[in-house]
């Protein structure tokens, strides 16, 4: 068993995460656990209007409070407005997102940061916040994207239109497609804004290091915001350092800057250390949400179940600022067809500013909304044709070698059909209800979700691996570990390649000063990107070790292997040498025992915007969910009786972790299906706390049965595919399909609450 014969010792085994115990024991120091003597506490004054002109801010009374160190407004920020170019290392043209540290000119959403206070205690901050006088001129605002598009609509920003951008995809002659159809099914699907609801709200601390480097230790998915922070402060990029300790959940909500610039500003102004933790209410009110969409789907099918035409119109509510909305919309546009091969396709998509909380990244990044629409629509088409929903899907699934509507050919493994067959089998026969008021239903949903960033972003990651003189292994890689085992995965890759145990590997991560930059922990890209970089670096060291070993033992390199902390000679086990011994020989002979490797994702040109043709994603993860529900016709309550999930994971790095991702994804998505929704009244969120914004509890989730196919057909290390986002995508449609199957009615809106289900039953 070794890396060499692909009969892995560590990869693909059920391993407890190598950092699990420290978390369970409470020894891990999260961003909010950091104490610095004399640190100031920082709090934010947030807008009480969704749309208003900022006339004046008077901070004098707040400044006069004993213990207040500073009160800052937009005027105090060296560069309060910065324009974020999307992309990590390459600047891609097209879209620019305005980022404001503190509100200026117009307040755009309820909860927007207007001023910050730094004081000796959180209580003094609260007192000072109350004394800041802000003069607003309330404006009418606009809260519905369709309204926001109308001529003469209230303008959210300073531009002359609320439209941020639009995309289209055209494949074939849609008119001819519909002309061929025997049935045409048309529906409008609506999904609300939802939150990430991570356990750890946004938090961090910051200080000025002895070397004059402004250092921020924060809960973030993107340490590379150090560049943006430097820009805000007008500092050179190498004078700002960001450290991300273990993060208590991200799901995309910590992809944008949260506390970092506030902390940095206070250090910049006062030279004193400081800390900040958002309350749950603040977190809900002021970080980016998953976009609310209205999606019109019109599908044409022939009587034998072949999809001949699909016309889609997507309207996305971007909320108050641009942030990542254009990219999220592009994801939706490309994925609007789902994992299906449809003869003719026409997709139009728009994203629009409103005075709602801004929307940005959230697990699934635009792939989730459209999955609800295309998978509900598949069940509706099946119903119209009188066909079994699985049968209809099987007639239309894309397979390896087929092209998406964008012309992009799927070069890698596509096991969607198998996952759908598997979940149907795992669901088994429908449970028989023994009560008059209980209806049972089953539903499945399949999905296609990319992993890795869009190919025109020219994504890269770096990882440094070294082997110490005693044979232990060190990795330095700037990943952010947001709880999915990013760090652990890298350890298992290096351990496998270098023939050591998982416990022999130490991983330093998430520090822009000390760990090579590995890009964002977003887009389900870290295992793929940093995993490949780590594999490359470890492979380099392995080659050096084996070459030296061949020379010392006078055997052919092909005869050598590394396993169980030894240099192994396959043809003669008695020649085995302890790894530490080989390392010492290498060291004294000047053989390099370290490597900094960069992995470059396959890059492509930007897609053609006039036709929507081109490559946007390098590869996809395919999977299916199956759900059985019991609906109570008295109350509309839908109880999940069974939950099954099947994915082609390519290669599981750690089967326990992979299962954990799939289970977590199911629950995360189930909340979207059942209960989650930010409720608004003219831009003011009505349920900005976890007593009223409802995520699933342990009582709402049944055991989740997981099935993993290992096609080895991914482009991650060892043929792995990404799981973080894909595992969550089809939950909501699977749930709603099951409910619709139970009640014999159609639901087209999320969440499918008991009230909505009862209303459907009544009609």
């Amino acid at each position, binding site marked *: 068993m070794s890396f060499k014969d692909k009969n892995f010792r560590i990869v693909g085994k059920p391993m407890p995460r190598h950092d699990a115990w420290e978390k369970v024991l409470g020894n891990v120091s999260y961003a909010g656990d950091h104490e610095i003597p004399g640190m100031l506490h920082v709090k934010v004054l947030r807008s009480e209007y969704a749309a208003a002109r900022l006339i004046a801010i008077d901070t004098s009374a707040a400044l006069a409070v004993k213990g207040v160190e500073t009160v800052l407004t937009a005027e105090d920020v060296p560069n309060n407005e910065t324009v974020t170019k999307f992309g990590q290392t390459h600047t891609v043209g097209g879209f620019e997102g305005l980022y404001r540290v503190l509100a200026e000119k117009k307040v755009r959403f309820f909860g927007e940061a207007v001023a910050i206070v730094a004081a000796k205690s959180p209580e003094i901050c609260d007192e000072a916040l109350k004394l800041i006088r802000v003069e607003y001129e309330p404006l009418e605002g606009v809260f519905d994207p369709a309204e926001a598009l109308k001529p003469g609509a209230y303008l959210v920003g300073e531009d002359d239109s609320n439209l941020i951008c639009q995309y289209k995809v055209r494949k074939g002659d849609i008119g001819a497609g519909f002309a061929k159809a025997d049935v045409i099914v048309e529906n409008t699907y609506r999904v609300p804004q939802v939150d990430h609801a991570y356990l750890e709200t946004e938090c961090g601390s910051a200080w000025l290091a002895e070397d004059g480097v402004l250092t921020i230790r924060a809960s973030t998915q993107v340490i590379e915001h150090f560049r943006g922070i430097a820009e805000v402060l007008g500092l050179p990029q190498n004078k700002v350092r960001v450290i991300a300790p273990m993060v208590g959940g991200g799901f995309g909500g910590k992809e944008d800057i949260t506390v970092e610039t506030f902390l940095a500003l206070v250090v910049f102004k006062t030279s004193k250390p400081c800390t900040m933790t958002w309350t749950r209410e603040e977190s809900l009110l002021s970080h980016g949400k998953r976009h609310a969409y209205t999606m019109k789907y019109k599908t044409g099918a022939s009587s034998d179940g072949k999809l001949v035409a699909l016309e889609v119109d997507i309207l996305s509510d971007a909320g108050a600022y641009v942030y990542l909305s254009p990219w999220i919309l592009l994801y939706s546009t490309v994925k609007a067809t789902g994992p299906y091969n449809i003869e003719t396709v026409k997709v139009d998509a728009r994203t629009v500013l409103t005075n709602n909380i801004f929307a940005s990244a959230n697990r699934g990044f635009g792939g989730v909304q459209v999955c609800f629409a295309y998978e509900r629509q598949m069940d509706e088409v099946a119903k119209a044709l009188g066909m079994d929903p699985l049968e209809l899907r099987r007639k239309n699934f894309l397979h390896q070698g087929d092209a998406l509507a964008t012309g992009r050919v799927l070069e890698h493994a596509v096991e969607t059909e198998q996952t759908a067959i598997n979940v149907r089998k795992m669901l088994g026969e429908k449970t028989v209800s023994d009560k008059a008021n209980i209806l049972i239903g089953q539903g499945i949903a399949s999905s296609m979700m990319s992993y890795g960033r869009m190919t025109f972003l020219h994504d890269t990651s770096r990882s440094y691996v070294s082997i110490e003189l005693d044979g232990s292994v060190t990795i330095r890689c700037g990943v952010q570990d947001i709880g999915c085992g990013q760090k652990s995965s890298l350890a298992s890759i290096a351990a496998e390649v270098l023939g050591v145990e998982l416990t022999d590997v130490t991983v330093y991560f998430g520090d822009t000063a000390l760990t090579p930059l590995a890009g964002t922990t977003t887009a389900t890209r870290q295992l793929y990107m940093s995993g490949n970089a780590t594999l490359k670096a470890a492979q380099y060291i392995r080659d050096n070790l084996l070459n030296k070993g061949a020379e010392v033992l006078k055997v052919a390199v092909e005869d050598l292997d590394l396993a169980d902390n030894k240099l192994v000679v396959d043809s003669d086990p008695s020649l085995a040498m302890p790894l530490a011994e080989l390392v010492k020989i290498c060291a004294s002979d000047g053989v390099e025992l370290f490597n900094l490797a960069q992995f470059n994702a396959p890059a492509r040109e930007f897609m053609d915007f006039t036709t929507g043709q081109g490559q946007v994603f390098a590869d996809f993860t395919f999977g299916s969910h199956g759900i059985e529900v019991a609906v109570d016709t008295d109350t509309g309550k839908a109880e999940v009786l069974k939950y099954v999930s099947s994915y082609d994971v390519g290669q599981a790095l750690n089967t326990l972790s992979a299962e954990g991702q799939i289970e977590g994804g199911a629950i995360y998505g189930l909340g979207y299906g059942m209960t989650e929704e930010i409720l608004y009244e003219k831009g003011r969120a009505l349920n900005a706390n976890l007593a*009223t914004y409802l995520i699933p*509890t342990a*009582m709402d989730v049944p055991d989740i049965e997981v099935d993993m196919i290992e096609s080895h057909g991914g482009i991650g290390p060892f043929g792995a595919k990404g799981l973080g986002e894909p595992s969550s995508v089809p939950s909501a449609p699977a749930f709603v399909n099951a409910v619709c199957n139970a009640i014999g009615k159609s639901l087209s809106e999320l969440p499918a609450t008991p009230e909505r289900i009862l209303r459907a039953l009544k009609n």
Partner: protein
Amino acid sequence: MSEVKYFRPKSYKELNDLLDQLPDFFLAVAGTTDFIPATRNGAPYPDAILDISQVAEFLLIKKDDLRISIGAAVTMADLFTNKIIVENAPALASAAKSLGAPQTRNRATIGGNIANASPSADTAPVLLTLNADVHFLAKDGSTRQIPLTGFFQDYKKTAMRADEIITGFSFDAPASDTWSRFAKIGQRNGATISVVNMAVLISKEGTRCTDLKVAFGAVGPVPLRSPSVESLATGKIMDQELIGKCAKALQLDISPISDIRGSAEYRRDVAANILARALTDAFA
């Protein structure tokens, strides 16, 4: 920031001895599961907090002859595991078990649940059907008791005076063959506030309903009994027609509002459905 006095007597005697030290604006608290969220949302702090959660006498559940008494500081976790309650008032046990999450139930008290007077308080409908009395102790040392039906006056307004605290509740143990149910409709299964809740207590002879007590929560400003349903059904043979009439009659007594947990229409529909279901099951 002003100072708040804090008292935590361990016995009824200690409590009585400190009564005259209490300022005019004091509040009794127990589990603080309502108190802390309320103050975080801006409710004013009193000048003194009287923490009654440790008063030994307030932690007791007793049955003397047919009278059951429950101390104000009895927690939900204690209620639903207590033998007297499980055997004599199973609906109260299930209400207690449905409240919040395990952490909440370990702290939340029955006194707090009633004093807080939320329309959705889960123990309220059950105590209403049990014809429970509320017992008070005033700052001057005097005591009194009133029927719970007269306690809830309007949204979050009760018959408790500012100088009083609740010491406990008492009610006659229902006959052993009474049929009872507590039903809670929430938006999810765990840690959920009732969109509608209901308690039913039925005595019957065959298919004849000899006595019916039914109470609802979250369908009006206060938890309430439904006199229309009770008078319609009492003494009658319970059949599907009567059940339908009861579900209709209920609508006269309730006045639900639409809020972020549900619409008035949903509350009306669900209240009717769960009442009909209970009556159907009771006489099945």
